[in-house]
C-alpha cells in the first residue's frame, strides 16, 4: 500500500474517532427527548385515569341516590301513606275492627322499617365496593330482584383473588350498573344471568339477558351513546376489554375481561 494511501486511511480513521462521540451524544439527546415525551404521556394517562375513577365514583353515588329517590317514592312512601290511611280510618268505638287496623298498621310500619334498613345498606353503595366486588354485585342483584320484574341468576367462581384493587373494583361495578341500567331501560328482559369468574389472571364478568336485543353493528354513535361506548372505554382504561354481542330478538351478552388485581 502506498504511503499516501496509509496516510489517507489514518486520517479517515481519526476523523471517524472524532465524529463517533458526537453521534453517541446526539443519540443520547434524542433518546432522552423521547423519554421525556413518554413520561409526559404516562402522566397524562394517569390524570385521565384518575379523572375517570372520580367520574365513576360520582356516577355510582348518583345511581344510588336515584334508586333511593325512586324507592322512597314508590315503596316506603306508599307504605307510610297506607299506614296513615289505615290509622286515620280507625273508629275507636269499634274496638275489634280498630284492633285489626292497628295490627295492619304495625305490620306496614314494620315493612317500612325493613325497607328503610335495605335503603340504608344501599346508601353505602360506594363503601360496598370497598368491601369487595362480589359483595357489591350481590347487593345490586338483591335490589334488582326486589323489583319483582327480573329473575336474576348469579354465579361466582371460587377462585376470585383475595387481593383487591379498589380502582378496578369501582370501574367494574360501574360497568355492571351501566349494563343493568341498559337492561332496565331498553331490553324488556325478564331474565338476567350474571357470572363472575377468574380466568388467566383476568376477571371475567358476563351479563346476559333475554331481552329484545339489538343489531350491534347498526347502532349510530348517538344511539350507542353513553352506555355501550362508556362500557368499552372504561374497560380499556383499566387495561381490559368489553365485548358486546347482541342480535334483535336474541337478547344481549356483555362480557368484560379485566386483568386483575
Amino acid at each position, binding site marked *: 500500500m502506498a504511503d499516501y494511501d496509509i496516510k489517507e486511511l489514518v486520517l479517515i480513521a*481519526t476523523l471517524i*474517532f*472524532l465524529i463517533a462521540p458526537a453521534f*453517541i451524544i446526539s443519540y443520547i439527546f434524542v433518546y432522552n427527548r423521547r*423519554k421525556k415525551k413518554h413520561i409526559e404521556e404516562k402522566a397524562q394517562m394517569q390524570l385521565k385515569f384518575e379523572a375517570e375513577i372520580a367520574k365513576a365514583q360520582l356516577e355510582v353515588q348518583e345511581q344510588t341516590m336515584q334508586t333511593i329517590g325512586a324507592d322512597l317514592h314508590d315503596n316506603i312512601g306508599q307504605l307510610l301513606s297506607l299506614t296513615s290511611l289505615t290509622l286515620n280510618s280507625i273508629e275507636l268505638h269499634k274496638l275489634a275492627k280498630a284492633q285489626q287496623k292497628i295490627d295492619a298498621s304495625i305490620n306496614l310500619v314494620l315493612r317500612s322499617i325493613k325497607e328503610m334498613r335495605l335503603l340504608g345498606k344501599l346508601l353505602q353503595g360506594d363503601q360496598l365496593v370497598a368491601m369487595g366486588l362480589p359483595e357489591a354485585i350481590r347487593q345490586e342483584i338483591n335490589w334488582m330482584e326486589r323489583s319483582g320484574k327480573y329473575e336474576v341468576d348469579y354465579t361466582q367462581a371460587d377462585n376470585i383473588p383475595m387481593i383487591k384493587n379498589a380502582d378496578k373494583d369501582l370501574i367494574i361495578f360501574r360497568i355492571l350498573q351501566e349494563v343493568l341500567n341498559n337492561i332496565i331501560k331498553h331490553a324488556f328482559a325478564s331474565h338476567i344471568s350474571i357470572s363472575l369468574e377468574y380466568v388467566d389472571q383476568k376477571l371475567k364478568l358476563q351479563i346476559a339477558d333475554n331481552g329484545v336485543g339489538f343489531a350491534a353493528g347498526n347502532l349510530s354513535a348517538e344511539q350507542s351513546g353513553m352506555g355501550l361506548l362508556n362500557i368499552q372505554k372504561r374497560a380499556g382504561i383499566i387495561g381490559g376489554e368489553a365485548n358486546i354481542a347482541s342480535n334483535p330478538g336474541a337478547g344481549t351478552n356483555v362480557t368484560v375481561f379485566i386483568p386483575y388485581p
Partner: protein
Amino acid sequence: MISEYFTLNTSVEIICFIVAFFCLIKDKSPAWKSMILFLLITCVTELIGIYIKKLYLADTVHVRPNVWIYNVLIIFQAGFTSFMFSHLLNKYINSKPIILGGLAVLFILYVVEVYVHGVFEKHNITTTSMSVWFVLLSLFYFYQLHKDAGYIDLKFSPAFWWVSGILFFYFGRTACNLFYYKLSLVVVTPKHYLTYYIYNTLNILLYACWSYAFICRKWLTTTSKNLY
C-alpha cells in the same frame, strides 16, 4: 517572555480553571470540588512543561525534555477522573469495584512502564489504556443514563456535559495515540503537524464541555437542591 506561556492550550485550561473556581468553590460535593484542584494541577503542569521545553531548547545536552512532567500528570488525571466517575456512577450502581479495578490496572501498567523505560520517556501504553478505560466508563455512564427510567434535562445536566467532554477528549486521543506515528508525519503548516491541531481541538472540546458543566452545576445548586 510571558506571552509564550499563554498558548491556546494553556489559555483554555486557565479559563476552565477560573470557571471551575468560581462555580465550584462552594460546592458541597467533594468530587466536583476536586475539579478545581485537578485543573490547577493541570495548568501548573502545562506552564512548567513550557518552561522546561524552553530550557531544553536552549540546552539540549544537559536538560531533559518535558515528557516526564506529563508522565507525572497521568497519575493525577487517572486519580481525579476516576474519583469523579465513581461519584457519577454511584447514582446507578456501586461503582467502587469497577473504578478501583481500573485504577489498579493503570497503576500496574504505569509501574511496568517506569521499570521498562523510566520516567523520561512517554508512557504510551498507560496513556492509551487510560484513554480507552475512560471512554468505556463514559459509554457505561451513558448506558446507565439510557437505561434509567427517570428524565433529566440533559441541556442543563452537569454530569452529562462533564462525561461528554471526557468522551470527546479520550475518544479522539485514543485515535491519536493509536495512529500517532502516522499522524505526526502529516505537516499542515510549516510550523505544526496535524497532531497539534487535533490535540488543540480535543482540548478545546474538553474544556468547553467542562466549563459548561461547571456553570450548569453552579446554576443547578443555587436554583435547586438537585445535585445531578
